[in-house]
């Protein structure tokens, strides 16, 4: 395969990893609480900007660790004050509220950090290429894939092996029964939300290094995350992960052969999936509501 195709596929895989990371957070929140968090992109941007602010003081690595945690903390506050009262109501309201939050987040980041793109400092040694033949295999790109893999692996491990994870998984199937078994459902939803936002913040820090940082970074990444969830399958986290990677790669291939359709092609894929298999590739039956 030519260098160009390889480059775009690899790039697509990386971007797909971002989509997947963000979509996983979205999916977690959606599955357990039935909330479409339109502000997810805003949290992503916030994570990136927080890291950007921290880097001059703490360096890249501490910022990578701390910024997502700070973002998750803010997420917990938002959940407690604004979103918790909406559980059990029509999903319309949480969608509208997070929609409004997205506006506010974008405007606030523009107010605090300016409307222009800002340079995001990544450690220099990461930027060098690892291979003379495949120039695009920079240390940063490989590093990002590793971090995403670790984060996703960590998430799946938490869900499978910890009590919290088990409760979350049970909650996505039947929250009422989980509640009658004595689990504090309010705390569960909060923690779940926090984990989801952590993923968004982490995705933000990583994405800023690759895509550059401007106030619209979140808005650009949120729509593909939606598509990743739809394509991968409603209710299935593995499906969301695969969906994200898949649309990333497809988008990358489109960049080679059909450059003007790079964004539209993921929606075409979504349309096809809806036509042929509405519950998504790995979706579960009966999850359409």
């Amino acid at each position, binding site marked *: 395969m030519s260098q160009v195709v390889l480059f775009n596929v690899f790039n697509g895989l990386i971007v797909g990893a971002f989509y997947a990371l963000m979509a996983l957070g979205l999916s977690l929140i959606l599955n357990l609480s039935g909330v479409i968090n339109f502000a997810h992109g805003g949290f992503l941007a916030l994570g990136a900007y927080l890291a950007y602010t921290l880097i001059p003081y703490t360096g890249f690595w501490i910022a990578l660790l701390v910024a997502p945690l700070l973002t998750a903390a803010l997420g917990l506050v938002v959940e407690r004050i604004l979103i918790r009262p909406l559980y059990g109501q029509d999903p319309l309201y949480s969608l*509208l509220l997070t929609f409004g939050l997205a*506006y506010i987040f974008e405007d606030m980041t523009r107010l605090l950090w300016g409307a222009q793109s800002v340079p995001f400092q990544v450690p220099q040694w990461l930027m060098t290429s690892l291979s003379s033949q495949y120039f695009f295999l920079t240390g940063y790109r490989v590093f990002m894939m590793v971090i995403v893999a670790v984060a996703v692996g960590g998430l799946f491990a938490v869900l499978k092996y910890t009590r919290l994870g088990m409760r979350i998984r049970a909650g996505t199937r039947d929250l009422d029964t989980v509640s009658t078994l004595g689990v504090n459902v309010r705390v569960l939803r909060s923690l779940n939300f926090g984990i989801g936002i952590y993923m968004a913040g982490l995705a933000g820090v990583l994405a800023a290094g690759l895509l550059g940082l401007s106030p619209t970074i979140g808005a650009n990444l949120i729509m593909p995350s*939606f598509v990743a969830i739809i394509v991968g399958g409603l209710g299935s986290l593995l499906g969301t992960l695969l969906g994200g990677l898949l649309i990333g790669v497809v988008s990358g291939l489109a960049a080679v052969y059909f450059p003007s359709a790079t964004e539209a092609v993921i929606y075409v894929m*979504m*349309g096809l999936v809806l036509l042929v298999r509405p519950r998504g590739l790995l979706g579960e039956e009966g999850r*359409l509501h």
Partner: protein
Amino acid sequence: MPFWMNAIGGYTELATRIVVMGLAAMSLNFLLGFTGVLSFGHAAYFGLGAYGAAMAIKYLGVGSIPAILLGVVVATIAAMIIGALIVKLRGVYFAMVTIAFGQVFYFIAFRWNAVTGGDDGLTGWHRLPINFGFAEFDIYQNDRAFYYFALVIFAICVGAMALLLNSPFGRSLIAIRENERRARFLGVPIEFHVWLSFVISCLFVSAAGALYALLNNFTDPRALRVDLSGNLVIMAVLGGMRSFWGPLVGAAIFVALQDYVSSQTQNWMSVIGLVFVLVVRFFPRGVLGMLRGARA
């Protein structure tokens, strides 16, 4: 200027915009408030109506009314196809899919520079005066004439919607909203009704879109974007989803507010976002919903 505009210190173009957005919000509410289906992608059909009308005038040189009709036809066909794809979904998933489909059209309009003018929008055309042979209405030069033209279209569409909602079809839509399972047991063909409601709603929204393009003599991809969809939903909720005229009230408040705030501050986006948050937390039943409750 329309006489009521003087009272609130507005201007003709603002009044026309309120009429247009009011129509759009009321069309959305046909689906949202009366059928209980959450569509967050109505901007797609609004924009298709706008682009359809604009391209008809620019490339085919038709008059204003044929332009509107063309815009409506294009958008309605799209709604029929897309509606068929998504009618099996409900709730949050339906909303997500409508958002996603809205964005496809946004990207098409954005990228297809040669035809749609890309991000700069479709310019170089303007609405033509209406010539019926026996009378000519100059709706191009005369802002006030265009306001009345828009009002006529508004009245026709709203009248049609009212007729539909008061018919047995409309009652079955409300039944679907209140308790879908029970409606299904009663033999109401749910998927077909939801699809039809979706198509009707998109039809009228596209008429509003076409009017919007004619109003500005311009259209751009922003007419297709998800923020417009969100704005339409908040207009419906703000005015009162469960009442027929609610969305018009919501549209009036929203458009006037947006106009005022954007002239006062750069951070109008935060204010609009704040409106969303406040409405959801404190006024979920909307203005007319609250008034109705106060009376009862």
